[in-house]
């Protein structure tokens, strides 16, 4: 039965509003529901529709494209969907497993997948209807009991699933019919629906019989591809599921190859052995496009990058505690040139917010490139001769980040801010330093807002004084964003955020960069466009 994702979302939003009016849920919880329902809609406006590949008439179908190959940065630690936290893991799991809900790429809303509909009964209870006649790859049936089993498994402390935190608001699941479940939550849980799109279903009997260690290497799901083999460290192979309950994939085999070196993955793309490469460096786009074998495709994403400055002095006294110094740093930047020449496009973020965030105010100006003014400000602040600063850098996903950093470093040095780059290999290490307050006075940072297309998703986690990611303490700003997340009035929220953005602009707690675009290398033997939610779906690709 066809269910419209929009309808589902609106239906549930109605209910949340009702509960709020009755005082059954707090403002904050209702606000989260609005977020979940409305934010994605906003994004739908900005992201171009992801066409599911040109409809090639059967007669012209490309001569047997047998395998479609995706390059991964590194091999997966496990094929148990509940026991990892990697983006690339999610991508692979999406092919062999289904989720309860999935994002409709046209509307960006969560629509049905293994669950066909859901509705709120009370603020802490959800009823879900499941798809019937779905079988796992080994023949086991998918039932309501399966859903209960999976939730139990993830929530079980003994299981030690790193995804447990994602679902910990769920209290327990009850089977109310062969294809119906009732889910009880510990408290009102508005982003329940968002979470549905990243929770894969495992078959109960199989897991219980074979044990976790076996399941981790022999996954069985309900997805469009079934697991074939895993050459550890090298590649994962999957074969089309011809009994799939949904639209069948066009290409019979899917392969996920671990290729740690970027240049090698480009070479493989050009050699025709790999069909999709994620994260192509900007400067190699031309080579790819000229080759005739592949093309470089740019995709806008929600992620924002900036250089955080230690305005609050968390790491100790430093020149950036003076607002004039921070402003000077921003005046030294020539973002327009960087975006135009060093990046495959980018969206300026004069107050850190990406234009895709709800609440973004386009009238906030960005700092003009003005090295003379920068020098004057520095002199005023007492740094006529400039100063040295340690700058922690890392690969946070921005295309050609090293080139950009070099350009920025050069411009900063030109006004007297001699930033010494110190490269940190593992993002984990950088995050450790940041949260423990030792990352100052300058460090690279990027934020994807957990795919929440709302200003709150960024401002609260990154800049509220109580966050351990924030190196800036501003009372008025904190009050504004607290107020904004506690009201439902969209206009009022926009006004709060507008004021907040002006403060951010004026106080310049960071060196503003931009929302970057990701570059993919795609073989000319397939029709495929990158997805806006960064999950590559090979089953949507069609041979050319």
């Amino acid at each position, binding site marked *: 039965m066809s269910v419209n994702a929009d309808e589902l979302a609106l239906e549930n939003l109605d209910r949340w509003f009702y509960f709020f009016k009755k005082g059954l849920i707090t403002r904050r919880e209702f606000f989260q529901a609005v977020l979940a329902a409305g934010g994605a809609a906003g994004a739908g406006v900005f992201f171009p529709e992801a066409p599911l590949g040109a409809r090639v008439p059967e007669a012209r179908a490309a001569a047997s494209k047998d395998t479609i190959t995706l390059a991964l940065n590194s091999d997966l630690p496990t094929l148990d969907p509940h026991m990892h936290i990697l983006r690339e893991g999610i991508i692979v799991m999406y092919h062999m497993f289904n989720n309860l809900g999935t994002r409709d790429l046209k509307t960006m809303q969560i629509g049905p997948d293994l669950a066909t509909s859901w509705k709120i009964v009370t603020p802490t209870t959800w009823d879900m209807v499941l798809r019937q006649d779905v079988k796992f790859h080994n023949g086991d049936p998918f039932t309501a009991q399966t859903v209960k089993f999976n939730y139990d498994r993830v929530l079980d402390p003994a299981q030690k699933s790193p995804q447990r935190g994602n679902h910990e608001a769920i209290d327990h699941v009850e089977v109310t019919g062969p294809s119906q479940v009732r889910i009880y939550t510990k408290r009102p849980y508005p982003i329940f629906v968002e979470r549905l799109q990243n929770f894969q279903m495992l078959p109960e009997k199989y897991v219980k019989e074979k044990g976790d260690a076996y399941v981790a290497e022999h996954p069985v799901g309900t997805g469009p591809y079934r697991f074939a083999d895993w050459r550890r460290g090298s590649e994962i192979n999957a074969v089309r599921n011809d009994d799939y309950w949904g639209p069948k994939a066009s290409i019979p085999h899917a392969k996920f190859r671990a290729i740690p070196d970027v240049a090698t993955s*480009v*070479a493989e793309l050009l050699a025709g052995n790999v069909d999709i490469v994620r994260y192509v460096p900007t*400067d*190699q786009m031309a080579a790819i496009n000229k080759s005739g074998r592949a093309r470089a495709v740019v995709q806008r994403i929600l992620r924002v990058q900036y250089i955080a400055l230690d305005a609050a002095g968390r790491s100790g006294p430093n020149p950036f505690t003076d607002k004039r110094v921070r402003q000077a740093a921003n005046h030294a930047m020539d973002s327009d040139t960087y975006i135009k020449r060093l990046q495959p496009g980018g969206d300026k973020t004069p107050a850190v917010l990406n234009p895709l965030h709800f609440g973004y105010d386009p009238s906030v100006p960005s700092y003009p490139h003005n090295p003379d003014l920068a020098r004057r400000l520095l002199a005023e602040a007492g740094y006529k001769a400039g100063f040295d600063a340690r700058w922690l850098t890392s690969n946070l996903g921005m295309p050609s980040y090293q*080139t950009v950093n070099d*350009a920025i470093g050069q411009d900063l040095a030109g006004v007297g801010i001699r930033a010494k780059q*110190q490269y940190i290999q593992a993002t984990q290490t950088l995050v450790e330093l940041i949260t423990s307050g030792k990352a100052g006075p300058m460090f690279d940072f990027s934020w994807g807002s957990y795919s929440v297309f709302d200003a709150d998703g960024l401002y609260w986690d990154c800049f509220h004084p109580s966050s351990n990611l924030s190196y800036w303490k501003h009372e008025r700003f904190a009050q504004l964003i607290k107020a904004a997340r506690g009201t439902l009035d969209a206009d009022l929220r926009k006004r709060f955020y507008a004021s907040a953005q002006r403060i951010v602009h004026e106080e310049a707690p960071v060196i503003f960069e931009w929302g970057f675009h990701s570059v993919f290398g795609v073989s000319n033997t397939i029709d495929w466009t990158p997805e806006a939610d960064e999950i590559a779906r090979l089953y949507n690709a069609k041979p050319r």
Partner: protein
Amino acid sequence: MGRIEAAAAIGPFAAPRRPRASLRRAWHRVRRVRGGLAGSAAVVIIVGLTLFAPWLAPHDPYVGRVVDRLLPPAWMDGGSAAFPLGTDQIGRDVLSRLIYGGRISLVISVLAVGVAGAVGLSLGLFAGFYRGWADWMISAAVDVMLTFPFILLALATIAVLGPSIRNVVIVLGITGWPIYTRVVRAETVRLRSLEFTMAARALGATSARIVLRHLLPNLVNAVIVIASLDVARFIIVEAFLSYLGLGVQPPIPSWGGMLGDFRAFMFDRWWLPTFPGTAIFVTALAVNLMGDGLRDLLDPQSRRP
């Protein structure tokens, strides 16, 4: 000293020479060593070039205009005479960065060799001269260091200390000393048991005097030869570390860093990685030839008909 050792690194050493050999014989030896001369000449030129970098480099290696980025070398289409070898991703002149980068690479290598050589020489001398317990400890340490894969030690050390020029020198020094110690120790042991040492002792010379006047000059020969080859080796290793991001940090130019940065340009701008690669190769070759020449010079028995 074991034959194997000798064959591996520096050729067999003969009986120790007296500190002052006759000049005439030295000259004859030099003439035979054409390769060494060529190498030395090249090294002098390279060192000179890098020393005079501020006057020779056409541009500031740290400054570039993004609008000038990725220009090809002057002789190609689109190139400009202002940038003889073209520009990099943010418009900095490649030639200038090569010259300054050479400076950095050479300084690092020489310093590292100095550290490794000094440490190695002292430890080897100590071990070889006093033998016994100290010898055993030091030899065990040498074995451990030689068995532990260099790269893991480098990775781990940099992970602890953080990447910087100073730390690269430290890492290279820490991993480079064992070979000096081993050679010096073996040579010391050998020399110590020869007649002239016993004679000197019989004449009442103190240990210190023996070491300084008789042993050191011969040891220094060995160390010099190893050191000169090590300079070439360290240039290459530093390039390796910089490529991994563990060495010289941007924007400081270094040949290894440039090679790593430009690597992906092999697809369509092949000249970019070729320049630093050639620089590394030529320098390593020159230093190697010079080192070979030095060995031939300092060791009479390696002359062959």
